[in-house]
């Protein structure tokens, strides 16, 4: 085995190589894209951060949350408040947003250890519906229904020729890569194995000496931090504002759909999910515009197509897009004359 191949078996090295490669590709790609496409890239990046957090929680630790949209709101409000009221710069504000969301994730995670499947779903659902009410309750701080607005983050002096959108896409992608790096290492480490052990059988795992509650709470906190970072990017870079309306209950449901359709528990699946959540509304809108019919039909067509796509995807690919891709890959490899044996389950 060559040195490079041996190095690539070290998780840290592999994840660094992965992140650097992805970063270089994104750097090259964003340079040639229009402002509109760059905004889409930024949207994909914040969706990826939230989806990656949720997919690790739901797929690796087996806890589901219908409250990640509200967690994104926590990160978003924290970041925007720090920037507008305290004059923080972008990077520390985003980090603080993620940290604040992680803190909110602690009681949720503790609650999550006690609750099973639908009961946890119910509790997180109530969280997603209840939290935006805080913005109405304290309009002085949170700006009520109208929320808070901020100036779009500007590129630093040495990159001042960049357009705002281009810079925004870079910031968003950098955040997504940080999330990818951290979660990749988590999943492929002892902590990740503990998560899966606890997911598969709590009692057996605790007999092996794993602390079930702690493990699950930790997963929830990390997942919350990723969602908070995603929310911060959404508010500061993409919207330049934050309001309760940006975090409707349907956002939490979209995230859950993205995670399952992409492939539960898989970080690559989170990329598929993010792409789907960004591109599908665009396609359905284009489709509706191309279609001539009554206003009622036209305005509801995107929604109908979205629903049908969800149903069809879940029926034809029960393991998500990534599951389908893996099955296809296995089938192709079985067809090749000298199939390599898989060295390691991904």
């Amino acid at each position, binding site marked *: 085995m060559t040195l490079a191949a041996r190095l690539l078996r070290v998780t840290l090295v592999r994840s660094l190589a992965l992140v650097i490669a992805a970063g270089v590709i994104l750097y090259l790609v964003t340079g040639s894209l229009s402002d509109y496409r760059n905004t889409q890239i930024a949207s994909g990046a914040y969706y990826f951060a939230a989806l990656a957090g949720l997919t690790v929680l739901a797929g690796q630790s087996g806890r589901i949350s219908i409250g990640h949209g509200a967690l994104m709101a926590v990160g978003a409000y924290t970041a925007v408040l720090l920037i507008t009221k305290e004059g923080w710069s972008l990077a520390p504000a985003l980090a603080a947003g993620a940290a604040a969301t992680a803190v909110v994730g602690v009681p949720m995670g503790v609650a999550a250890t006690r609750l099973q499947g639908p009961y946890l*779903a119910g509790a997180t659902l109530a969280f997603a519906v209840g939290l935006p009410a805080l913005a109405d309750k304290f309009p002085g701080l949170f700006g009520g229904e109208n929320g808070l607005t901020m100036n779009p983050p500007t590129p630093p002096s040495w990159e001042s020729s960049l357009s705002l959108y281009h810079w925004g896409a870079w910031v968003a992608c950098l955040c997504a890569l940080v999330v990818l790096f951290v979660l990749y290492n988590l999943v492929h480490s002892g902590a990740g194995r503990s998560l899966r052990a606890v997911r598969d059988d709590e009692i057996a795992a605790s007999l092996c000496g794993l602390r079930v509650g702690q493990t699950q709470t930790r997963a929830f906190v990390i997942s919350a931090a990723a969602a908070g970072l995603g929310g911060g990017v959404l508010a500061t870079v993409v919207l330049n504002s934050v309001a309760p309306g940006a975090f409707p209950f349907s956002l939490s449901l979209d995230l859950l759909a993205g995670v399952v359709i992409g492939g539960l528990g898989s970080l690559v699946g989170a990329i598929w999910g993010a792409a789907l959540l960004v591109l599908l509304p665009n396609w359905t809108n284009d489709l509706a515009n191309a279609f001539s019919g009554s206003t009622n039909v036209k305005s509801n067509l995107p929604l109908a197509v979205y629903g049908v796509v969800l149903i069809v995807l879940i029926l034809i690919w029960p393991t998500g897009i990534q599951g389908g891709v893996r099955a296809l890959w296995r089938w192709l490899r079985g067809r090749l004359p000298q199939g390599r044996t898989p060295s390691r389950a991904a």
Partner: protein
Amino acid sequence: MTKFIDLTLSGISNGAVYAAVALALVLIWRATRIVNFAQGAMLMITTFIASAVINRTGSYVAGLLVALACGLIIGALVERLLVRPVENASPLNAVILTLGLYTVLVAIAGMIWGNTPRSFPAAFSLRGYRVGHTTLLFTPNDTFIVLTVIATAAVLALIFRATSLGLRMRAAAFAPEVARLLGVRVGRMFTVGWALAAVAGALAGVLIAPSSFLGPNSFDPLLISGFVAAVLGGLDSPPGAVIGGLILGLALSYVSGYEGTALVPLAALAILVIVLMIRPGGLFSVSQERRV
């Protein structure tokens, strides 16, 4: 004091409707271990159908009956055609499927009936009862709502406890393999469970539509309240669903009456968290043995 009585009465009336939705969710959960997020959209469709029938015939009873019948059919079709393939997959797949169905149904309703909410007739007068010189906030229509929900819960309890169909349904839900060996058509029992649940949902839709108005998204808050009520009571327990609905209705009525409507979603969250921290499986859960 009058305010307290008013809030209590309107809480009971709202709670009865939450209870009906919670019953629908509990029936589906017991039959197939699926939380039906499309329930709100299914009852929205049946309520639109009821509205059309009432407008055409002028008869409220006809509208109600057609809505219940359509609920029965929609529930059975949804289970047989869409849910059956995901029943044995990961539980999240069923969740996404019902979410997709919810989206499609909302879009279809918007295409046919438009997105502007419209009014829906009440069965009885909406003028409050008069006691002495004060007018209570409780109307003859509220009496109708409460009595109808009680009757529905009683009929469902009777079906489950006292009929052979109920026994077969319980057996299919409790031990599908054994039930199948004993000749129970398990799949058919699941279909019946979904159909009965959709009837309870359709009823809730017709009952609440006069106060919530009728639009594609009008019943989303109702589904959320119903789900919270079902979780409060324990998803496995129909009596729990009814009690959970009433508790939630009363609590939210007091909060919105004394503290303002803005706090209602937060209050629902607080109640749910407190109850679940004390009893993680809801108020009426039975403790379960877990095995390695």
